[in-house]
């Protein structure tokens, strides 16, 4: 009997997914467990495995379609079977009209690692009615206990091989996945996959063998999107050096009054400064869509955070309107959640401009790849004490380099350079951030 395959639910908050690519086409033979399609949620890209063996009879949705969770996407059965399942994604929901492209919908689709180059898509809400109901909602056969453990630990059940009767995922399968470093744990950025940043061991292996390390889904998602960003977005870069003496002094003064766990970081100042600067440069707080640039009404600054298995961007909403302490507290809380794999959807949703800071690693300068569909990203290096020429004299001063990467379709070097200059006004006169 033909089996309908539905859009799986890969996280408690997932409402829809984008069908990126059909791996199998109509008429092709498919075995249970074979990859049928790749879908993309607002968090990651995931492979959909076929729950049944047979022949692909129907592909109900097209590549690029945004499909509500549990809506049918394909039918697998025996060759010659007659099937016709109606797509629940009607064409009018897919046509993007300019008035649908409100700022909020763009922000919605724009998560920490949003689909590179994919257009912001209005949520296909109200189309949740299932044309065909599946006995396994979400397409994953798992025991209630396995589902609960998976939910609590952000494990993607669809990626697990069940050892229970009929391939049911049971407790021990999820526990094994949690233990195993290379388990196909969720492709969500919040997944705990085992740190690639473990302390190096200084025991030198005499003849180390080549090691094959499978990439995690998170790593694959990062790779896919950034390749797409780098290949389709014409980047250009502007580097500026900032005098950090006053900012560091002010930070010292602030922190003298703040408890240990509330101390303000250099990065908190930069987030605030970037947000205030972006207010004056709406073109860099934007995205491009066809022939239109959408300048966002909100300034939501993304902050890249290292997490086990990759990185994710947490978002300070309306950073231009928040106090430094508030920004600091929010980033601390969101970063902690991100590292623990407990990130909330809201933490990673809706950034309009990103920052990446390698200051803690004694970096002189680096450049970042734009986090699509944003128009720019700011790469911040270390503040270092260096000899500087000032008024014809060599002095010692604190300097920090930052490089902005900008989408040339949106903006030009002059605007980016002015942005960097304006940013200097805040960073070099930090009192301006307080008024």
């Amino acid at each position: 009997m033909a089996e309908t395959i539905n859009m799986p639910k890969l996280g408690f908050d997932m409402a829809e997914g984008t069908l990126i690519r059909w791996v199998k086409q109509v008429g092709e033979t498919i075995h249970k467990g074979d990859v049928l399609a790749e879908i993309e949620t607002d968090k990651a890209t995931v492979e959909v495995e076929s729950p049944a063996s047979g022949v692909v009879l129907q592909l109900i949705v097209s590549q690029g379609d945004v499909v509500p969770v549990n809506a049918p996407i394909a039918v697998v059965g025996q060759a010659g079977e007659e099937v016709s399942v109606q797509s629940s994604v009607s064409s009018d929901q897919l046509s993007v009209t300019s008035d649908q492209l409100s700022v909020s919908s763009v922000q919605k689709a724009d998560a920490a690692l949003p689909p590179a180059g994919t257009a912001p898509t209005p949520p296909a809400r109200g189309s949740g009615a299932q044309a065909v109901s599946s006995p396994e909602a979400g397409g994953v056969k798992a025991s209630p206990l396995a589902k609960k453990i998976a939910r609590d630990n952000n494990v993607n059940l669809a990626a697990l091989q069940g050892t229970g009767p009929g391939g049911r995922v049971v407790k021990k399968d999820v526990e094994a996945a949690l233990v195993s470093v290379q388990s196909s744990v969720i492709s969500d950025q919040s997944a705990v996959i085992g740190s690639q940043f473990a302390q190096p061991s200084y025991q030198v292996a005499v003849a180390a063998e080549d090691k094959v390390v499978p990439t995690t889904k998170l790593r694959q998602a990062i790779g896919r999107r950034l390749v797409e960003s780098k290949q389709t977005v014409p980047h250009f870069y502007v580097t500026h050096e900032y005098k950090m003496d006053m900012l560091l002094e002010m930070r010292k003064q602030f922190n003298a009054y703040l408890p240990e766990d509330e101390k303000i970081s250099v990065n908190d100042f930069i987030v605030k400064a970037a947000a205030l600067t972006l207010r004056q440069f709406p073109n860099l707080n934007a995205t491009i869509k066809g022939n239109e640039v959408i300048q966002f009404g909100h300034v939501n600054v993304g902050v890249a955070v290292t997490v086990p298995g990759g990185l994710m961007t947490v978002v300070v909403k309306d950073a231009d309107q928040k106090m430094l302490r508030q920004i600091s507290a929010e980033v601390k809380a969101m970063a902690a959640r991100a590292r623990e794999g407990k990130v909330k959807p809201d933490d990673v949703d809706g950034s309009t401009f990103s920052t990446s800071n390698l200051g803690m690693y004694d970096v002189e300068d680096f450049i970042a790849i734009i986090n699509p569909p944003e128009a720019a990203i700011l790469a911040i290096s270390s503040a270092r004490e260096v000899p500087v020429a000032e008024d014809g004299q060599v002095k010692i001063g604190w300097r920090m380099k930052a490089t902005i990467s900008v989408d040339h379709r949106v903006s030009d070097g002059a605007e980016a350079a002015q942005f960097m200059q304006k940013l200097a006004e805040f960073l070099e006169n930090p009192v301006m951030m307080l008024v």
Partner: protein
Amino acid sequence: MAKITMREAISQALMEEMDRDPNVFIMGEEVGVWGGSYAVTKGFYDKYGPDRVKDTPIAENAIVGGAIGAAMVGLRPVAEIMTINFAFVAMDYIVNQAAKLHYMFGGQFTLPMVIRTVGGGGRQLGATHSQTPDAVFAHFPGLKVVSPGTPADAKGLLKSAIRSNDPIFFIEHATMYQVRGEVPEGDHLVPIGKSKVQREGRDLTIVTYCKGLELSMKAADELAKEGIEAEIVDLRTLRPLDMEPVLESFKKTNRAVVVEEGWKSYGVGSEVVSRIYEEAFDYVDAPIVRVAQKEVPLPYNRTLEQAALPQVPDIVAAAKEVLK
């Protein structure tokens, strides 16, 4: 502690309570001169006389009805229905009067009475005399239904039942009177409405009671040989049903088998499984399996009778099924 039979344990409980409280008396078919169909009241007639150990006509409705009347005026009758199969004759008195009288009279009357009866198959008594319809009686609010699986619990629960001011339907098992077990001497009371873990284990939970306990303990021994540790929760009281030890155990093992001698449909197992799904859904790691009697009138033929009743290998197989 003394190892005594289930029969002796029940007999002790009755005697101790009759000695303790002159309002306690026994009535039923063959309970007096004959000493009880299962010899539980042997010697009672000589000790307490015909007023406190009353032989009755073969009229179950009269036995239960008489006990209800006696309880309403302050006595504490222990009415014996020779087998649970005959309780159907007194069904109106049991479920419509005994179970509801306190409620219907707005609490003006209490009914401190015990209906002792004997259920279960396995003695080739034929389809009408071998039933285990415990769930039928446990269906009615107002009636407490108790069914012990060990001599110690039989004694402790029966003593508590006699002291209770509620009508209690006390079900013994026809094939368990010779089962021996350690029974605390003296005033040993077991609370009604409390399930108990009778054996600890980490791999699965077997929920059962009465005859099912005996079978499950043997099954657990078999399973232990293969390294499977079954935890056994004995319900002891079917109404009010104490799910707490069951849920606690299930949350530990995540897998369960429910064993009862009655039929599977609408049975005790149905209730227990539903409650687990309702109250511990997120702990379910495999479908729960019920072991129960085949859905046929119990055959007289010994081979067929044994085939229709749940057996130790059925429980072992069910345990392995849920552990798949």
